[in-house]
């Protein structure tokens, strides 16, 4: 079957970058096997002080899109911190490549898995072997795909059909005897997803300059905090902002109020919610 690879994918398997192994790598992730027909070994060199990936190399056994996905992955992680790369999902690899044929999505999933394994290796986390997890069972024995992996692929990629699941995880693509079970997992996962309340959108961590931060703190105090205090006969004033330390002073009835510590933690919670979770609020007169 001739796959419709785009020019970017063709370029990256014709001219793969970052091939090989890093000798003094401190984060290594290995996934796949020769039986399954594709495998990827990712090695990273991470600067211990800054947690920045200074080098990344790969070795891949697999088809054109597996080689292209591996190159993409290494290019994407070099120069980033471990926290940053922990957020990379298979769709990011697909986006970097400008798309993959549907039947080849599993190549991008293999990239994400190798990265997860490398991060776990760096953090010294023992990868929980699936067979040790009582809630995990191998569903597709041809390719060794567990129910957990299938559920994850469904949720992370919004999969809706058996064909989608095979394209992303290979499950069901061999003898086909597990197809009924996969369809059941799909049904249950989608049903659970429908029942669960919509997950609150996590507040986007904002990257603020000091000036922006101070402005946002002032704005929050003016609009969200002071009106409430004034209603209760009290008030507060912003004294200073040093890094993440916010210094305030209570006024009016707040002074000498028994509940002032509660008020302080309330102010801190509000500022953390609206500005930055790292803020510490202290009272200047202390």
């Amino acid at each position, binding site marked *: *079957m001739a796959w419709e690879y785009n020019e970017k994918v063709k370029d990256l398997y014709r001219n793969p970058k970052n*091939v090989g192994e890093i000798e003094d790598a401190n984060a290594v992730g290995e996934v796949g096997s020769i039986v399954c*027909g594709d495998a*990827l070994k990712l090695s990273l060199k991470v600067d211990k002080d800054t947690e920045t990936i200074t080098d990344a190399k790969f070795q*891949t*056994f697999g088809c*054109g899109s597996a080689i292209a996905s591996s190159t993409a992955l290494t290019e994407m992680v070099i120069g980033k911190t471990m926290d940053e790369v922990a957020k990379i999902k298979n769709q990011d690899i697909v986006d970097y490549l400008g798309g993959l044929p549907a039947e080849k999505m599993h190549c991008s999933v293999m990239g994400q898995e190798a990265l997860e394994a490398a991060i776990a290796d760096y953090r010294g986390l023992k990868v929980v072997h699936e067979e040790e997890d009582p809630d995990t069972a191998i569903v597709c024995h041809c390719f060794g795909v567990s129910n957990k992996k299938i559920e994850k692929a469904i949720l992370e990629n919004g999969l809706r059909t058996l064909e989608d699941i095979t394209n992303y995880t290979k499950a069901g693509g061999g003898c086909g005897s597990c197809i009924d079970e996969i369809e059941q997992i799909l049904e249950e996962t989608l049903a659970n997803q429908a029942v669960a309340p919509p997950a609150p959108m996590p507040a986007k961590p904002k990257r603020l300059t000091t000036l922006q931060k101070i402005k946002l703190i002032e704005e929050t105090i003016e609009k969200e905090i002071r009106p409430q205090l004034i209603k209760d006969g009290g008030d507060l004033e912003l004294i200073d902002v040093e890094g993440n330390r916010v210094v305030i002073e209570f006024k009016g009835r707040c002074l000498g109020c028994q509940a002032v510590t509660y008020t302080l933690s309330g102010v801190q919670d509000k500022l953390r919610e609206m500005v930055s979770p790292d803020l510490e609020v202290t009272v200047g007169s202390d």
Partner: protein
Amino acid sequence: MKTVYLDNNATTQVAPEVVEAMLPFLREHYGNPSSMHAFGGRVEAPVEEARASVAKLIGADQPSEIIFTSCGTEADSTAIWSALNTETDKNHIITTRVEHPAVRSLALHLKRKGYRITELPVDSAGLIDPRDVERAITKKTAIISIMSANNETGVLFPIEEIGRIAAGYGVKLHTDAVQLVGKQPLDVRNLNVNFLALSGHKIHAPKGVGALYVKRGTRFRPFLIGGHQERGRRGGTEAVPNVVALGKAAELALDHVTEERTHVRALRDWLEQGLLEAIPRSQVNGDLLNRLPNTTNVSFEHVEGEAILLMMSDLGIAASSGSACTSGSLEPSHVLRAMGVPYTFAHGSIRFSLSRYNTADEVEYVLEHMPPIIARLREISPFWKD
């Protein structure tokens, strides 16, 4: 960029003589052979000449033993369904693990319908043991369907011997000879087969035409039920240009069949030896002696077939692979798996299949470019250790 076409078991170049032969039937002679008028009648004789040419190619006694079909798959289905529909008290089919999907998928379909299927194993060279056929026969066996030559490895099966066994038990034998026809001399009179399927586009005719040999005296039921065409054995207006093309291709195949054993075999052997010598950890899959002269299936350990094909394709070289990624099924070739070829080799298998149109220059070109492709992919592979 030049194309070096080494995928002739997939399909072949239409011979220029074949194109010439069929053109008048696309242009002026567009009549329907069933028509009463002279205009239609004018295409009847060429269809019958084509039938005679196909009969001659396979050694059939009479042209009437040939039914034209739309493809090899239809010929296979016709044979198997005919056997099942003429002996409705029987429910057992014997076949092999290495059949082409034209037979294998039908067998799986019939299994789901309640038929009992015996899939005979092959050994590590891809050969079947005729004694296994004998052991599998029961009173309920309706048909034995075994290919003459395997499409992936070129390995030949002992149809003559199996035919003797089948005839001894009065069981019908069908052989899918799509890969064998034109590459080896063939005489159905020696084979004891009831049915034999062949395909036009594997022997330099266009796609869309095949034929089924039905031995005289074999009870038969049509697969396509319709008009009285093909003496009531296959409904549907004859694809006259394609049928004429198949007839011409059959003539040419007979003329060139010795070339397969000389020119084609020499090129194949040179290619195969050259690859094995230049590329470490490579092997040929399938028996070296009992094999079609045009086919070699070579595995390169620790590299993946699709990646090899893509790099070959960039250089204009066309071949195919038994790797999972190219099969569309995510599993490597069922043929190589049935032979027990290790996964480390199965995923990196490339089938080169030649034809009389290939040249020494082309083989030289391939031998020049294959070793660097494999070396490059091995450099990327995590399993390759120098």
